[in-house]
């Protein structure tokens, strides 16, 4: 019955779109006076040859004929039929799945949606395929996210939303989570079946000038991560410039029916002790609180501010549909001073953090100063003190001009008797109007050195030719030396890459 209902909804949308298009108006150019009727298309072709160096009989070995040439083509259309109805489709080939890393040989539907937003009603209905529907950064607790383990490139479903009716918004999303093999088997088209992984999400929120309050419920059924249901509430209260925000969430294994009403807010205030606030919360809960707007400004002295925050993610909090990883307790206070005229900003960050995932437990004090000088020169200095380890210092300098950009960052970590120096230098040089030379060298913890050099030729907006070689990919691997504790996510892999990209169409 549900399959028939889903197919009927899809069919109705499609018929409406076709009827609207039948008049031929939707095929008009963007110069039409009615901006809701439009048609845009685009296509991108990427040809790429990749040579990976491998130990073997030959100094430069292609890792295999399948990956030597990694061509990819994609094409998309975005059409509006008027009356709030629009269609978006994107097909492609050669796409590597994020979960499996496999590549597809043929064309298939990568993304798409049919959206209907009638102008006279605060209503939105969307049938989507592998699009980003969830916005985690608007929530204090990211209990649901497009970047979660189960959602990337997997969701096919429908969304119904009522927006701002008497300051009230309600959103319901139901989607199936498809494995890569099934997606490719059906050419990317949606598959209506009862069985398989699934996600249901319901969110209600009310906003006013004094703040907002929201409630969310989500139930995920995943063959890989298990079944998990989460109920959460979040709210904020505003007094003048002060903004108090708090959120609470509870997860259970299984479906929403597993959550008993009496156990949603499982807080025992009698267990609170000084330095042991987290003892009051159950291990299946997640709590977050933050205060913003504590700021003071006097004359030309700049602006002082303070942001205290608290996060507790219980060790048994299961959130495969979001970005919360259990086993975290963090108390943080961030103080800052900004002076726009002097172009100076100083930040002091006090953190007391326990993280099961990072295997860290202790307090840290980090201070940063950022200054901008004339001519585009900028410096940042930071010092980090920890009670469970030695201090760290970091200095960064950036110089930008019309033709040349160079930045260097050095970090010194004191680990008892040893000192590790990490260094990152990046440069870009415009040789003419179409050529760009970029290079990057990285020294990791006094031990490993990496390098990369790239040449780009971009004569216009529609063509890009790139040659890149080195032992790591700075655009794909994160290196953050100014942060606490610092991120060194680099993998050594000698390679030469030659790629050409051509854009066509109007996007």
């Amino acid at each position: 019955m549900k399959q028939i209902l889903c197919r009927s909804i899809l069919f109705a949308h499609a018929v409406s779109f076709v009827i609207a298009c039948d008049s031929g108006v939707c095929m008009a150019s963007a110069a039409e006076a009615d901006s809701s009727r439009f048609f845009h298309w685009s296509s991108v072709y990427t040809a790429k040859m990749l040579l990976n160096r491998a130990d073997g009989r030959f100094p430069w070995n292609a890792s295999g004929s399948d990956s030597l040439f990694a061509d990819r083509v994609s094409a998309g259309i975005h059409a509006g039929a008027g009356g709030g109805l629009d269609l978006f489709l994107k097909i492609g080939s050669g796409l590597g799945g994020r979960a499996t890393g496999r590549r597809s040989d043929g064309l298939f539907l990568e993304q798409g949606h049919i959206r209907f937003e009638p102008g006279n009603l605060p209503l939105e209905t969307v049938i989507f395929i592998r699009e980003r529907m969830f916005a985690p950064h608007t929530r204090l607790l990211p209990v649901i996210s497009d970047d979660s383990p189960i959602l990337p490139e997997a969701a096919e479903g429908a969304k119904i939303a009522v927006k701002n009716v008497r300051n009230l918004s309600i959103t319901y999303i139901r989607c199936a989570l498809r494995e890569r093999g099934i997606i490719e088997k059906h050419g990317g088209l949606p598959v209506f079946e009862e069985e398989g992984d699934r996600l249901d999400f319901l969110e209600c929120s009310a906003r006013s000038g004094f703040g907002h309050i929201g409630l969310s419920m989500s139930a995920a059924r995943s063959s890989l991560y298990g079944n998990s249901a989460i109920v959460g509430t979040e709210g904020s209260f505003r007094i003048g410039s002060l903004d108090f925000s708090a959120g609470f969430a509870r997860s259970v294994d299984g479906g929403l029916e597993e959550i008993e009403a009496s156990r949603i807010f499982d807080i025992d205030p009698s267990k609170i002790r000084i330095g042991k606030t987290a003892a009051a919360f159950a291990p299946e809960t997640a709590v977050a609180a933050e205060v913003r707007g504590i700021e003071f400004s006097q004359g030309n002295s700049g602006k002082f501010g303070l942001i205290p925050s608290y996060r507790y993610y219980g060790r048994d909090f299961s959130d495969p549909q979001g970005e919360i990883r259990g086993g975290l307790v963090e108390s943080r206070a961030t103080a800052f001073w900004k002076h726009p005229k002097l172009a100076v900003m100083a930040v002091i960050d006090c953190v007391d953090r326990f993280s099961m995932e990072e295997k860290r437990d202790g307090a840290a004090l980090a201070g940063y100063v950022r200054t901008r000088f004339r001519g585009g020169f900028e410096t940042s200095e930071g010092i980090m003190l920890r009670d469970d380890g030695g201090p760290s210092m970091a200095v960064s300098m950036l110089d930008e001009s019309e033709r040349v950009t160079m930045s260097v960052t050095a970090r010194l970590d004191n680990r008892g008797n040893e000192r590790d120096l990490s260094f990152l230098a990046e440069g870009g040089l415009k040789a003419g109007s179409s050529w760009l030379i970029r290079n990057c060298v990285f020294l990791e913890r006094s031990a490993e050195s990496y390098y990369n050099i790239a040449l780009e030729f971009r004569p216009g907006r529609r063509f890009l030719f790139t040659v890149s070689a080195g032992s790591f990919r700075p655009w794909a691997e994160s290196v953050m030396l100014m942060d606490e504790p610092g991120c060194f996510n680099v993998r050594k892999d000698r390679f030469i890459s030659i790629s050409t990209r051509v854009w066509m169409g109007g996007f």
Partner: protein
Amino acid sequence: MRRKNTDPPPGMKITHFELILISAFLHVNADAGATVLSATDGSLPERIGETTRARAMGFAFSSLGDDASTLFINPAGLVNAKGITLYGEYTDGPNAYSGGAARGCLSVPFDRLAAAAGFFSDNLEGVGAWNVFVAGAAWRITEGAQGSFISIGADAMIGRLAREEAGDCVVCGASGTSDTEFTAGLGIMIRPLPVVSIGCSSANLLENGFETGTVGVRWKRQTRVAVSWFLQDRVVVSWERKYCGTRESDRYGICMRTSVPIELMSGFYDEKVTGGIRWVQRRFDVSIAFSPDGEGAITTSVCAQLFFHKKPDEIHQ
């Protein structure tokens, strides 16, 4: 003072070459029966060319030569100095430079000539204390428009290696042995255009080694060929190829002058990343540089220059 050199075994031949571009190398074998420490990269003799600015730019410095330490790398670069310059440097590191190394020199320009004198002192565990005195001169043969020129330079080195050692080879009453050797070097620098500079140098032309008691230390000839490219008085990119014995290596360096008087430098050689900064003022400049030693430790070098009479050019083009 020149001590007796080791006679080559039969069949070996020592030849000397007039240096124009790249030289070929011959190895001199030590006396049979003596223990010879292999002169591998980073060993005692090569450090004389590891100055602070060169280190910051991945040791691609031979065609740049824009500070007084060029005396130890390419003496032809001495003509770039615009005034009397006093240079001092200290290098330290837990492994390769245990005990530290110091360097100093004074360079004086005379119209189209320049002269300099300096010393280098190093101490390596297991090998000994090494002191080198260098005197060099450079002559700007010809000058053209917009700062183009051709210069040649030469230097003479006296090196002394001293070891604490006991045994039959040590003179009664002495605590160790020492050996003093003399050698020379040549260099040339060509700047055909304001945006490019080519340098070539060869150090230790005589390839004299040291013998101290039972230990012999080879001192190999080092030849460098380098090219630097200048962009708008702000950016310098250098490449250098160095030949030492049978080994050759490529070095790359980049330097950028920021809008405040700070230069950011970075380099790459032998799979190692180097970096440094230089603070330039009217009467002095200070540089700091670092490089990994390949054993998980960092070698750090600091130097300072004082300028007398005339302010140096902004980017020494």
